[in-house]
């Protein structure tokens, strides 16, 4: 590892740290600024003063805000975020358990959407250029406009209720029964990946079309490659950077979408945990889950930024020059 790589990683790590601090303060502060007294949020505004006082004592809410903040952050490091007020479960443990289904959904959809985009984008660039361009544009517009949870409902109706090919909902842990788990995840993953696939298909298609006129395609053909294989190899390489960039940007919306899709397919992930916690006014659970999801996104951005810097030194130098 040379010094430039080290400098790049440490600079991006610093960015990650600062972002994490800002993000945690926003989540922590927003709840208290908008909701006011956490004890009254949990007990309701008409709670008896003694009961509220007892709860404040129990949850440590009578400490100064910065002590509460650091205790919360410390809880992530020690794996102890306390127990749920109404559910009685260990909050940290529940987050770890619920993380599995949600990340399977989000990352599964990320890979499925990339696969769809590559296949459809490549096919549409190589065949019937006149009408597939319009078709891909229309499909992309529709893909963005269709809410993922509605796509989920329609898929359930067609493939679970009418045809009975897939279960309408529920979740089988991956390690317990890999086949059954994947079977139960097909519909939610397809529902979640449609709109991100639609956006990426346009990029793959235009990257393929861009390389078609390049001289290196002629060179490759002169060396005995077919036009098709030359365009596919060069086009895919050309498409990889924009597709990876968009995928990193889409991870946030895929995670958010997973939280909603979990409610369509009754999958016990972070979304279900969060929703029950919201209705029960479980401030600690809500702020912890929100922060975990934010951290996943920030860490992914960190990895992407480091990867870019290593792949293309010009990007890293531009950022070092103060572009931020």
């Amino acid at each position: 590892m040379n010094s430039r790589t080290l400098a790049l990683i440490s600079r991006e790590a610093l960015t990650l740290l600062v972002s994490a601090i800002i993000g945690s303060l926003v989540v922590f502060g927003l709840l208290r600024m908008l909701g006011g007294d956490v004890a009254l949020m949990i007990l309701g505004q008409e709670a008896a003063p003694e009961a509220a006082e007892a709860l404040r004592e129990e949850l440590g809410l009578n400490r100064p805000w910065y002590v509460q903040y650091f205790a919360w952050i410390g809880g992530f490091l020690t794996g102890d975020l306390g127990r749920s007020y109404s559910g009685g479960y260990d909050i940290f443990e529940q987050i770890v358990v619920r993380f599995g289904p949600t990340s399977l959904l989000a990352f599964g959809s990320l890979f499925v959407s990339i696969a769809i985009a590559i296949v459809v984008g490549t096919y549409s660039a190589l065949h019937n250029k006149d009408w597939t361009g319009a078709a891909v544009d229309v499909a992309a517009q529709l893909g963005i406009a269709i809410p993922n949870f509605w796509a989920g409902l329609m898929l359930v109706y067609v493939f679970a209720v009418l045809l009975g090919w897939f279960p309408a909902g529920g979740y089988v842990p991956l390690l317990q029964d890999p086949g059954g788990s994947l079977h139960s995840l097909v519909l939610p993953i397809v529902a979640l990946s449609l709109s991100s696939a639609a956006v990426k298909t346009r990029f793959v298609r235009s990257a393929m079309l861009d390389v078609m006129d390049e001289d290196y395609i002629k060179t490759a053909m002169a060396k005995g490659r077919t036009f098709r294989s030359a365009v596919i190899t060069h086009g895919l390489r050309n498409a990889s950077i924009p597709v990876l960039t968009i995928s990193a940007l889409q991870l946030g919306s895929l995670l958010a979408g997973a939280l909603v899709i979990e409610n369509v397919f009754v999958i016990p992930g972070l979304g279900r945990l969060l929703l029950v916690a919201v209705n029960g006014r479980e401030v600690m659970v809500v702020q912890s889950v929100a922060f975990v999801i934010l951290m996943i996104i920030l860490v992914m951005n960190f990895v992407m930024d480091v990867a870019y810097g290593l792949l293309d030194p010009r990007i890293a130098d531009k950022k070092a020059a103060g572009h931020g």
Partner: protein
Amino acid sequence: MAETQTATSRSPGNGKTAARTRRRWPTSLVLGVILVGLVVGVALLSFFWTPYNPTAINVRARLSPPGTPGYPFGTDRVGRDLVTQLMVGARNSLYVSIVATFVSIIIGTAIGLFTAAAAPRWQSIVTRAVDVGVAIPGIIVALVIATALQPGNTASIVAIIIWFIPVAARVAIGPAKQVLTLDFVEAAYAYGRGKMFILFNHVLPNISSIVIVQASVMFAIGILAEAALSFIGIGAQPPTASWGRLLKEAQSLIDVSPSMMVFPGVAIMVAVLGFNLLGDGLRSYLDPRQVFRQGDA
């Protein structure tokens, strides 16, 4: 969304016809205006006329299929007319989305303008905070807000505003900084104009087309967000009619009355498609540099 704009049109002869068609509306703008007009028209009409009273219950006609005389789209589990529910739902979607977009565009653009004119140290701090804000998914913001406030339209609006402000700010910062480097800004300083005057009289008009396009895209995202929040039960509460809440109710009747979930979904799709096309169309119409993209659907 914004990233779709880089997909290039390849139809030959586009460049040649660009000059001639410069004043014509792009296809996407025409389609966008028609679809948005339809949704807005239905929402406005619902204030004066709906087939039935939105809260009228007719238990004898409960779960009528589409095509039942008097109920072209059918009824829900207590016999409320679905056409009426959809019309009033349009009003609710637009209300939440438009209020949230206007407030966040105004605040976000102001933050963008001031940041562009601020000292570099402040610029980097605000930019970093804005980047974190953009990274937080809207649903998460909404769930945090709904914990603090009661679930309902207000929670939806506040959540969408807090979600959109960093987005609006980030969209404004770059172009505003660019305009501030132009010669006429320096001339205005030399003429003795203050920073505020320059920001609002020279910079704002020059970034206004970007802001307008962004607002149109935000209307679309706002409608999707409102629907998603109502669907998971932290947005509009009964008896407020909302497309997302109609879908939530349809979910439990999926094997009994599947038509109930078709129409609200189509309504959301039409509204979102309309605002997205409007944004795309405005982008090519307002930005002369992008006039070559007119052929895009």
